[in-house]
């Protein structure tokens, strides 16, 4: 569905992405992990052309995202929802108005339908009570959940999550993980998740990829990933107290 072909991205004199090639399949949860500064968010931004590759092409189906412009780019972006690290909520709009924004600006839906969809989205992230509050009046975690509600309210085919659980308490983080799984299983949403949280990555991902030195050093199912002999992977797992091949998922250990 999303295909990276020999992507090189040069920033500040170094190749952040270095001949990166991979494919994300329709309907899967693809998780990208790796240390800070290795280009995880850069990879995500290439999928919606917030960044353009120095060389190589990003494909969505058979359309090039990297070369799209104007109306074509708008049409491609409308297939995506994007959760930014900080939520990226507009400060002068309430939470409900923020969530309603893409529907009000880009669809002809009647007001009652918009209100219904906003309510559903806020209910999914457990934020109905904060609907009339401004982003500055709610916590960082709530802002992130509001950002998630806005990302999914248009019912996109693909949702990109940039650090969806960072800065959240463990209970809320697992709630977000469950929501990502729910969107994937019940609504067929393809998800690309960038995270440091290995526990979450191994629990929700169909495939987990480790980005290191501008390339994936491991792409595998969670079980195979946790058992990987790759030293970078092992170092990353051990740093989060996850022992080889043994990690918690809901209902037991994998």
């Amino acid at each position, binding site marked *: 569905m999303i295909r990276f072909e020999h992507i090189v991205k040069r920033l500040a004199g170094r190749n952040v992405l270095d001949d990166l090639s991979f494919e994300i399949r329709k309907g899967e949860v693809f998780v990208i992990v790796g240390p800070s500064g290795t280009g995880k968010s850069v990879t995500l931004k290439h999928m919606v052309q917030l960044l353009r590759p120095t060389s190589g092409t990003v494909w969505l189906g058979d359309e090039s995202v990297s070369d799209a412009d104007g109306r074509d780019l708008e049409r491609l*972006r*409308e297939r*995506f929802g994007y959760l930014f*690290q900080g939520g*990226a909520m507009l400060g002068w709009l309430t939470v409900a108005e923020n969530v309603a924004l*893409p529907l009000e*600006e880009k669809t002809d839906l009647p007001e009652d339908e918009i209100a219904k969809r906003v309510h559903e989205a806020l209910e999914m992230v457990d934020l109905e009570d904060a609907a009339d509050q401004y982003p500055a009046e709610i916590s960082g975690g709530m802002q992130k959940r509001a*950002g998630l509600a*806005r990302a999914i309210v248009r019912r996109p085919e693909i949702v990109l999550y940039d650090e969806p659980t960072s800065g959240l308490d463990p209970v809320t983080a697992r709630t977000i993980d469950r929501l990502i799984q729910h969107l994937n299983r019940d609504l067929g949403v393809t998800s690309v998740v960038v995270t440091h949280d290995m526990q979450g990555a191994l629990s929700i991902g169909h495939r987990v990829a480790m980005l290191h030195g501008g390339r994936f050093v491991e792409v595998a199912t969670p079980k195979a990933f946790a058992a990987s002999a790759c030293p970078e992977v092992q170092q990353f797992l051990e740093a989060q107290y996850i022992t080889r091949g043994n990690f918690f998922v809901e209902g037991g250990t994998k």
Partner: protein
Amino acid sequence: MITREPFEYPENASRLECLVLAARESMADTGRAVLLGVRAIRMLPDLRRPKARAEFMRQMYICGIESLPVITVVALFTGMILAFQTGIELRRYNQEVYIGSAVMVSMLREMAPFITGLILGACVGSAMAAQLGTMTVNDEIAALEIMSIDPVRFLVTPRMAAMMIMTPILSFYTCMLGTLGGGVIGTTQLNVPWAQYMSNAMEFARAKELFVGLVKALIYGIIITTISCNEGLTATQGAVGVGQATRRAVIISFLLVLIVGYFVTRFFY
């Protein structure tokens, strides 16, 4: 696309190449700023949408009503200073009855739009650059682009429309208050009767002076909005970048108000 990647010099570039590239990038930046202003003006009909009207009214309030206190004080005292300084000189020739015309003509043609431009550049322009800059570094502009909401239509056009309306109105208000301030000084300090001051002032208040002043104010409004929004939308590197964008917005707006003001005056007189 509004969201842009930072400009980088190629590795191993010589100093001369860097200089040429910097000049080219600077020209490209100017071109992008002009295009931003043109696009914002071309999208003015979009303000007929009820949702856009709400934001437009909010911006009218911010540009107009919130600037009123400072403009009132500055306009009054500018008129008073102008009347006092001119009056002292004119009194040497027993011509102080003409301070009304001096205050009115200089306020209408030059001082009112100039003062309004500077105050709006400092108060409203800096706020625009800071707000859009913060939105840029916090990914809010990128979020709008992902939602296929054009940031120019959504953010710049309402600000442009508000400034295009409010700057001439505030300029006229400044002129009236300045004249009033001059009258107070004339009556209390220079012994010019109020009626005589006003009739002398109104005699020189010609339509052309008013027209030139309002045209200047309109142009200043467009310049301040374009520069401030462009600086905000191109801010990078967090809080430091927002601070730099705000500073640049105010400096460039001030300089352009001064320079363009001269050329507009030169064009009409």
